[in-house]
């Protein structure tokens, strides 16, 4: 029982990282109708920036600064590589972001170098015990869960109560109508990329907390792709629910995979993809996605 609850809690911790990443994907998709394959690169860039800034600034200052810097990087990428492609087929733009990802990641990997780099988080692998139950919970997972809750709350409030949030919702609903109503769709594009970059940087930091930043970190960001497919490409709640679900199922698989040795070690790495295939066979638009209606 303890084992089950502990792996569930671990799953919520990793799941909240996925939720943050998936939120970035969905925000970009809603605004521009494009899946940004550049998210892994932004996540890695954010985590590496934190490793450099945590020394002089301290962890708590380094994370927001890195998030802002990564958002700036994302803005630049959007302006240079994505904006000229407005109106072109979505898959062409997606391939462009794939190109951005490959190129940016090489540069960022250059900054990782051969040293072991830590984000300098205050938690490490320490645990807290929930009183009365004997259940251990890693502090970093608790922190990730809390940070995600705060960020997601802020994000939903932003979309719900601010003028810019309203503009973004309008642009997501119908770009031309929003443009006619005086919404600067260009600004919406830019802001959505910036938000996605910032979220990716925070997610990267929590993904690397308690471990070190290395080039393989980007694979975690790719796990957010099955998450958004699972939740539905254009659903923000779907991204959160999908992220937590994928994280939990992944950790449960990791805990219990010794009972099925024929699956091979590390089968938990591919469970998100298997889960995605299964869900898509039943629901082609994910759990919460809007069904595409084709009018001729």
């Amino acid at each position, binding site marked *: 029982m303890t084992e089950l609850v502990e792996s569930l809690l671990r799953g919520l911790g990793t799941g909240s990282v996925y939720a943050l990443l998936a939120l970035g994907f969905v925000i970009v998709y809603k605004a521009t109708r*494009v*899946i940004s394959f550049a998210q892994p690169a932004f996540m890695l860039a954010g985590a590496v920036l934190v490793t450099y800034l945590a020394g002089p600034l301290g962890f708590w200052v380094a994370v927001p600064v890195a998030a802002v810097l990564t958002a700036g990087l994302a803005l630049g990428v959007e302006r240079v*590589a994505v904006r*000229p*492609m407005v109106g*072109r087929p*979505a*898959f*062409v733009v*997606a*391939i*462009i972001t*794939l*190109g*951005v*990802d*490959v*190129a*940016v990641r*090489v*540069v960022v*990997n*250059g900054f990782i*170098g*051969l040293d072991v780099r830590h984000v300098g988080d205050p938690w490490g692998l320490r645990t807290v015990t929930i009183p009365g139950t004997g259940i251990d919970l890693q502090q970093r997972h608790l922190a990730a869960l809390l940070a995600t809750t705060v960020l997601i709350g802020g994000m939903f409030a932003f979309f719900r109560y601010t003028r810019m949030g309203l503009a973004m919702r309008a642009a997501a609903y119908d770009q031309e109508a929003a443009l006619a109503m005086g919404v600067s769709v260009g600004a919406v594009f830019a802001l959505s990329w910036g938000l996605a970059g910032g979220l990716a940087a925070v997610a990267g930091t929590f993904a690397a907390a308690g471990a070190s930043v290395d080039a393989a970190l980007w694979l975690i960001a*790719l796990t957010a*792709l*099955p998450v958004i*497919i699972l939740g539905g*490409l254009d659903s923000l709640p779907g991204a959160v629910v999908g992220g937590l679900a994928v994280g939990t199922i992944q950790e449960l698989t990791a805990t219990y995979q010794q009972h099925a040795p024929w*699956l*091979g*070690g*590390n*089968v938990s*790495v*591919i469970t998100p*993809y*298997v889960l*995605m*295939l299964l869900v*898509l*066979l039943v629901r*082609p*638009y994910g759990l919460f996605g809007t069904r*595409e209606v*084709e009018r*001729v």
Partner: protein
Amino acid sequence: MNTTGRRTRLRGRPDLHTSYAQELTLFDTRAKRVAVAGLLVVALALPFLLTDEVLQLLAVCCVAAIGAIGLGLVTGYAGQVSLGHAFFLAVGAYTAAVISGDPDGRVIGFGITNIAVWLPAAGLLAGLAGVLVAPLATRLRGLYLAIVTLGLVFIGQHVFSEWSALTGGAGVGRPAATLEFFGQPIAATGPLGTRDQKLYWLMLLLLLGFALAAANLARSKVGRAFTAIRDRDIAAGVIGVNLARYKTIAFAVSSAYAGCAGALLYTITGFFDPSSFSLLLSVQYIAMVLIGGAGTISGAIAGAFFITLLPRFTRELQAWVPFLSAQPNEVPNVFQVETILYGVLLIVFLIFEPRGLFGIWVRVRNYWKAWPFSY
């Protein structure tokens, strides 16, 4: 009106077609026929002009071109974005390696080393894998499909690196298929030429066969159905194209091409391990198709040669740019430049010349066609 074709053509009027058969001819103008024949003669004569090292690289280019043509059929012609090409390459490579492998060896092998057996088998099995994936492809569109095929690469990589009886395991690998044709070893220096010369000729001839087959498929009923689906799938469905059927055919043919390419690719280096079939390999093939020119066979071939020769060029670059290092553990090194170039070239081509190398060629041709006038 004579419907037999060429003889009724007017000289100097390449766009004037007087019969449907003329429109469908593969090499419709004399200039095209002469150019293709000339190119072929040069390509066949290259082994007498170049060193073995370069020939080996060109052989790899030819094999990559077969794979790129396959991806071009499904992505360029039928418009279904597949990031899963690396998976089908892997299926083909392992099928061929298992069939021709040493039965007493460390990994599974059946000891049938004849290329006439393992090459079709590799194509067939990879094609079957394509058919198995196709139900997902017929249900999904656009970016959903791209992500699902990306998932396929990860699942495949896991299976291949865990199934060490088949693949030798991650980081160890297994020998590739043996090149032998009814008792005649192909990849061995003999009276006909050195190993690399013979490899190059073999791969060139295979590429020629596969390219012609693809070009013929593209101009058939099936090919027209592919383009109809790419241009507007709903409209295609309305005019009577069976979407599920033709998407399945597209995936099957494309995967079969990938399987053959995968089977041949590693016979050149002789050894391969499961980590080769990563997402980067898929991205490289996407880059070949898009940089070469989506929706053309010659474009896919040009793109494959371009992308495969790129590492060679970046290595030459080192002589010109002094701060680049050839050591993988120093920064910046040529390997980083190479990977960045994949990404940057993709972006630059998609923004500035979406029709790829083929589009550049069309522009050059049109310029000279109207010279000295601008149009």
